[in-house]
């Protein structure tokens, strides 16, 4: 299936369908999620209304990690099988992932100050997420810095794959080290430990974020076709101009 859609024309057909579907799903899920976050879920018995920050904080943090995971898989596929579409996918995902990582840090800070009494703590969870943001930025800087596109793609793929180490640290930091941050309460072997009234808005928002990101990735991949066509037209023009 992977090599089936690595054909640009076939991918274009897929994207044409995927863009309106993911866009509509994201809109519906986010509206429902917002309604549940504010009107259909109670304040927490300890945290009061600050618990509503969770409904934007956790989905952002989850996207920060999921996008990185997807980027690393795409980079691996590109590195091994040389599918240029996989490289393009990794490239268009990077800035989106960086924004969601920054959002996870921002909303975490705005939740930490009233509940923990601090904006920031250099503990394992927070520091590793900051490193994740730096890896995203480094990935983008590396691509921009190397002129030879093929070489840039290959080096960026190596960086993305190496960065998986940090992704694992982000996930397990709360179990391996003592942290201000709480351990996982949704994705656990023994099932979620938070109440349904909070799990519903959280799940809807997280799914809404997922489809929103999928929409952005498909949309950007289609734009890339146009950008590349313009680029090759321009370089041909330059060659002819020089000749």
């Amino acid at each position, binding site marked *: 299936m992977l090599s089936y859609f690595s054909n640009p024309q076939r991918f274009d057909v897929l994207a044409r369908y995927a863009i309106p579907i993911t866009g509509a799903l994201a809109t519906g899920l986010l509206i429902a999620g917002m309604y549940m976050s*504010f009107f259909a879920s109670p*304040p927490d018995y300890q945290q*009061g*209304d*600050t618990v*509503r*920050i969770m409904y*934007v*904080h956790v989905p*952002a943090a989850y996207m920060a990690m999921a996008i990185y995971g997807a980027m690393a898989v795409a980079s691996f596929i590109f590195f091994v099988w040389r599918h240029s579409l996989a490289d393009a996918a990794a490239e268009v995902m990077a800035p*989106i992932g960086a*924004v969601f990582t*920054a*959002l996870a840090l*921002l*909303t975490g800070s*705005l*939740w930490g*100050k*009233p509940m923990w009494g601090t904006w920031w703590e250099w503990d394992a969870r927070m520091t590793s997420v900051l490193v994740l943001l730096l890896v995203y930025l480094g990935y983008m800087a590396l691509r921009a810095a190397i002129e030879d596109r093929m070489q840039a793609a290959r080096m960026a793929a190596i960086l993305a794959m190496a960065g998986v180490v940090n992704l694992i640290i982000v996930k397990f930091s709360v179990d391996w080290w003592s942290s201000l941050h709480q351990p996982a309460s949704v994705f656990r072997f023994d099932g979620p430990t938070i109440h349904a009234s909070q799990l519903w808005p959280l799940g809807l928002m997280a799914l809404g974020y997922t489809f*929103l990101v999928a929409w*952005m990735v498909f*949309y*950007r991949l*289609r*734009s890339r076709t*146009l*950008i590349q*066509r*313009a680029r090759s*037209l*321009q370089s041909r*023009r330059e060659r002819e101009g020089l000749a």
Partner: protein
Amino acid sequence: MSEFFAMGGYASWVWGAWGGSALAILLLIVFVLSERAGAKARLRELEEDED
């Protein structure tokens, strides 16, 4: 209504987090849409020169 916006005394934290998220996501959407529009305009420009 004002009770709703007060968020039990945590208004600036809750609305700050939601407002920041909404703003960042809206800017991302604008970027994604304008990227396509920009590429289309550039391509049209180049193709017109071609003729």
